[in-house]
């Protein structure tokens, strides 16, 4: 991973951590993450609160132990989880559960989700106990709306009082979710006595068989047991303690059957109790107005039936049919009234209500429903709930089918997207809804309508989803990052480690859980580490960064960089949170870098060169001692570290400060390498080499200067030059006298006619001339090197010069014939002597290197103000690879075999230097064995650079 990315991730991570603090603190929903083995890997404080345990104790515990969930009395077991996981469908476990937490029984909404990247399961738990209670109350309310007309119908249509009662208690039980319904009637023969009937509704007849048997054996006196109390008061009565309120014989059975609460109410005719209906539930029954009203209503209805039955008996003459018709008519009116009433109620209800036909089509919806879904009834024409693919996909179809099959059911919360189902509607956001489905049956148990009540829980759900997402993101970030996170307590015990620890140190998070930190730390770093931890503990919310070595699982020591944050006082964290990364490689690089740096520093200090590094804006970054010495800066000045002062001091010492400043500015600007000499007022000379420092990517890092004190070297060079100069001059003096003496002698022998002596002296003279020539070359080279060649320029005829020299050279050779071709007919301006020297050199070379041929060609020409002279021989020639070297100093052409030609090898070098200085160029074309053509060309007029007169002075003094 590129370093930038890493850093970004870390920054993100740190943000997330801060964010997590906040989330954890404010999160009302419990959050757990589970490993594949369903052990808890992460738990927040909200879940700890729900479960009433310390969060830390949850870590590593299997979910089914930590969170005992049950649904409809059935406990969710390990294999249930496994099954869902095998199908990769953790979500299918989502729903409402009962959770036993200590003393409390909670209703919780649990959502299971899967985090793909890290293969963990996230569990979000919401305590909806209170909400469920409210929901139940609402459900009851709704049920009553439907129950009342149902009871009325039943009562009217029943053949007998028994049948009416039977249907009634069943209806009530189903609507209310009660398990037991039973009827007592007033004993007509014995005053104040209730007789148990065999009219029962039992949710589970087997389960309650004993209870039923015992109940049926006991007649109740007014005021005794639950029904007795109702008989006595003619008002409904609730009980929540079966032991206290039921007679002993059946209290025990009630308890055993799980009955927790009961309710009984009277059936009244003209304020007279004629029967008592008792109901029991496995849940506590809370008294409320609604139940009271409904029960009173039912009681009245039933009383009317009884009354009617009585009057029927009295009016024996009235035909049964007529009576029935009349009753039917009355009932019909009653129903119509009731219908209007309850439709209005439905319409105005704040709850979304949908009434469906048993075939799944929608019969009616209320305003709340339309508002919830954003569509009207007409828009869902043709919609069949039982064929809704989405509901199937969401996994709640079984619940719905249960409802349509006749069982009131709570449908778990789902996210429903209307757009998927309903055509031609747009922009309807998905809704999270929880629903209650109630089948409405006729007296024969046939389903007539199905009522569906929705509750919009989108808001809560969105929040939960967001939290889940954030949590996921946070976890993913932690786990994906190269940094690991660890929570430790002040004692140094590991509370939590993120899985990324594996990347950092090779251990798994589980391996480390609960262990102490100390044994992992390098003994040399332990004191340091402890000090740092102590420091951190003293700073609530503070931060400490440390670097130390930790044992990697593979046995090596890994360098860690840890940023510790003190969250001991942060609610929901209460730990030291460390973010650490393996910096072993970085450490290694750092060490290497330090080594390189010290090496470089040592080199720099030892270097005889002065070194100065400046930043891109020209500020001094670093320099060595030699630099300070060379520039003769005082220590005080350097200590001040002010660039302006140093520059001022530097320029004062230079002969030409303006040029210096201009040049430096230019170089900084153009990023060019440079070389020049700096002349100081005190006579010292520094060579200055400079180079821009440019990174591989073109970044400008400034400029580096190297200074070399060449004062001594320059002085020595000068002395050497002077010496050669003097030596040459001194040599010339005896040579001059030797030559003169020889010539006098030759003269005398000539007079005497001693031709042999004349010949020998002639040879001697020729050798003296050679010696003179060599001395001349030596002097010329020295002068050229030191730039002390004096050019005496005048106008002269180029053709004359060439002619004279060719003539002169011809005189020195008997073997060769020099053929002159071409004319320039030009006057040229230049140093006639020096140019002549070049041509003489070329001619003498041509003779020297063509010992076996006899022709030398000289050709001169002019073109566009440039004269060219070529000297061609037909001698040994020069190999191609050596042709460009012939103009170098001390180069000598070797002949065939090992033959060498005498000379210092300076002639062509001197020639080329002279031609260069006269603004021309010199070149050669040659073939081995065929000969060479040496040419030079010169401008007729050229500008000569300023000569220094002092150099001439030097010359003169040497005589």
């Amino acid at each position, binding site marked *: 991973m590129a370093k930038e990315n890493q850093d970004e991730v870390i920054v993100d991570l740190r943000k997330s951590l801060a964010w997590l603090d906040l989330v954890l603190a404010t999160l009302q929903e419990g959050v757990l993450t589970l490993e594949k083995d369903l052990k808890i890997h992460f738990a927040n404080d909200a879940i700890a609160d729900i479960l009433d345990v310390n969060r830390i104790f949850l870590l590593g515990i299997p979910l089914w132990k930590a969170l005992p969930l049950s649904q409809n009395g059935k406990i969710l077991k390990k294999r249930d989880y496994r099954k869902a996981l095998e199908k990769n469908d953790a979500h299918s476990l989502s729903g409402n559960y009962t959770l036993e937490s200590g003393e409390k029984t909670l209703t919780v909404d649990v959502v299971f989700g899967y985090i793909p990247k890290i293969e963990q399961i996230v569990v979000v738990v919401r305590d909806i106990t209170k909400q469920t209670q409210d929901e139940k109350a609402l459900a009851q309310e709704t049920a009553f709306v439907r129950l009342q007309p149902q009871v009325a119908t039943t009562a009217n249509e029943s053949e007998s009082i028994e049948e009416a009662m039977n249907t009634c208690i069943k209806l009530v039980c189903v609507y209310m979710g009660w398990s037991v319904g039973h009827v007592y009637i007033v004993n007509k023969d014995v005053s104040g006595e209730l007789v148990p009937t065999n009219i029962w509704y039992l949710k589970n007849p087997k389960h309650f068989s004993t209870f039923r048997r015992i109940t049926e054996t006991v007649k109740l006196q007014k005021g005794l047991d639950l029904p007795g109390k109702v008989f006595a008061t003619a008002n409904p009565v609730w009980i929540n303690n079966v032991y206290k309120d039921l007679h002993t014989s059946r209290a025990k059975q009630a308890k055993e059957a799980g009955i927790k609460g009961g309710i009984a109410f009277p059936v009244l005719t003209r304020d007279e109790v004629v029967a008592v209906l008792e109901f029991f539930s496995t849940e506590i029954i809370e008294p409320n107005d609604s139940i009271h009203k409904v029960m009173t209503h039912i009681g009245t209805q039933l009383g009317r039936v009884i009354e009617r039955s009585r009057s029927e008996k009295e009016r024996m003459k009235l035909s049964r049919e007529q009576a029935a018709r009349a009753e039917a008519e009355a009932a019909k009116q009653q129903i119509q009234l009731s219908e209007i009433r309850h439709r209005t109620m439905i319409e105005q209800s704040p709850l979304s209500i949908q009434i469906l036909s048993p075939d799944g089509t929608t019969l009616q919806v209320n305003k709340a429903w339309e508002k919830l879904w954003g569509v009207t009834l007409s828009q869902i024409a043709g919609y069949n709930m039982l064929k809704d693919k989405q509901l199937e996909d969401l996994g709640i179809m079984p619940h719905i089918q249960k409802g349509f099959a006749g069982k009131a059911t709570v449908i778990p919360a789902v996210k429903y997207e209307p757009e998927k189902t309903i055509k031609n509607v747009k922009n309807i956001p998905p809704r999270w809804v929880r629903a209650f489905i109630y089948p409405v049956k006729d007296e024969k148990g046939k389903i007539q309508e199905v009522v569906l009540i929705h509750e919009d829980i989108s808001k809560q759900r969105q929040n939960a989803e967001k939290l889940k997402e954030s949590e996921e993101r946070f976890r993913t970030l932690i786990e994906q990052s190269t940094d690991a996170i660890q929570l430790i307590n002040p004692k140094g015990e590991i509370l939590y480690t993120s899985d990324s620890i594996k990347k950092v140190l090779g251990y798994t998070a589980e391996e480390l859980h609960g262990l102490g930190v100390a044994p992992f730390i390098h003994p040399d770093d332990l004191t340091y580490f402890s000090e740092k931890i102590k420091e951190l503990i003293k700073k609530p919310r503070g931060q400490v960064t440390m670097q130390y070595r930790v044992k990697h699982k593979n046995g090596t020591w890994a360098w860690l960089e840890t940023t510790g944050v003190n969250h001991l006082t942060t609610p929901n964290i209460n730990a030291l949170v460390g973010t650490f990364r393996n910096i072993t490689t970085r450490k290694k690089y750092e060490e290497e870098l330090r080594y390189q740096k010290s090496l470089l520093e040592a080199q720099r200090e030892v270097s005889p060169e002065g070194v100065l590094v400046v930043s891109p804006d020209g500020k001094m970054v670093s320099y060595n001692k030699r630099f300070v010495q060379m520039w003769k800066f005082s220590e005080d000045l350097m200590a001040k570290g002010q660039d302006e002062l140093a520059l001022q001091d530097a320029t004062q010492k230079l002969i030409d400060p303006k040029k210096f400043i201009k040049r430096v500015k230019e170089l900084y600007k153009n990023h060019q390498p440079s070389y020049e000499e700096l002349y100081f007022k005190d006579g010292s000379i520094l060579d200055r080499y400079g180079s821009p420092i440019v990174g591989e990517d073109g970044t400008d890092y400034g400029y580096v200067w190297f200074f070399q004190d060449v004062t001594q070297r320059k002085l020595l060079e000068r002395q050497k030059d002077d010496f050669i100069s003097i030596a040459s001059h001194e040599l*010339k003096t005896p040579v001059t006298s030797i030559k003169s003496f020889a*010539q006098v002698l030759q003269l005398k022998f000539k007079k005497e006619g001693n031709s042999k002596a004349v010949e020998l002296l002639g040879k001697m003279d020729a050798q003296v001339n050679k010696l003179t020539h060599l001395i001349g070359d030596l002097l010329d080279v020295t002068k050229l090197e030191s730039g002390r060649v004096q050019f*005496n320029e005048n106008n002269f005829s180029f053709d004359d010069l060439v002619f004279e020299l060719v003539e002169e050279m011809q005189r020195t050779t008997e073997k060769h014939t020099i053929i002159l071709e071409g004319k320039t007919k030009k006057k040229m301006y230049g140093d006639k002597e020096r140019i002549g020297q070049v041509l003489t050199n070329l001619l003498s070379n041509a003779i020297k290197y063509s010992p076996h041929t006899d022709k030398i060609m000289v050709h001169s020409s002019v073109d566009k103000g440039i004269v060219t002279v070529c000297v061609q021989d037909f001698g040994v020639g020069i190999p191609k690879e050596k042709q460009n070297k012939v103009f170098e100093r001390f180069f000598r052409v070797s002949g065939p075999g090992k033959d060498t030609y005498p000379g210092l090898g300076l002639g062509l070098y001197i020639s080329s230097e002279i031609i260069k200085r006269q603004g021309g160029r010199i070149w050669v074309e040659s073939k081995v064995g065929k000969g060479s053509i040496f040419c030079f060309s010169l401008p007729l007029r050229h500008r000569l650079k300023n000569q220094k007169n002092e150099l001439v002075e030097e*010359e003169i003094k040497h005589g």
Partner: protein
Amino acid sequence: MKKNQTLNKHKKILVADDDPAIVESITLILEEFGYHVDSTVDGETIYKMEKTYPDLLLLDIWMSGQDGREICKYLKKKELTKHIHIIMISASRDIAQSAKESGADDFLAKPFEMEALLDKIDKYIGKAR
């Protein structure tokens, strides 16, 4: 080498060079060709010259401490001596210009061909006899 017989008296040449061997060898040559030769190795003596002035002065450009050009300038300035032809001699080939500037009639680089010396002398004062 032909010897012209002239009616002129011996032409007088002064050779001034700080190297005795050069003075001697030049003197030998010039006497061989019939010139009357005086010589000196000390520049100071030239300043002290009286009455018997030479026709031509062969002057070394630098004689142990004495600048030949100064001598040259001095002589060319003085009424009594400005007629003296001066040929400067030097080991350096590059000072022809400098010699001219100081008023010398000609310049000759060391070492030189006997003929070159005689030609130059002939040019200014003619042959010895």
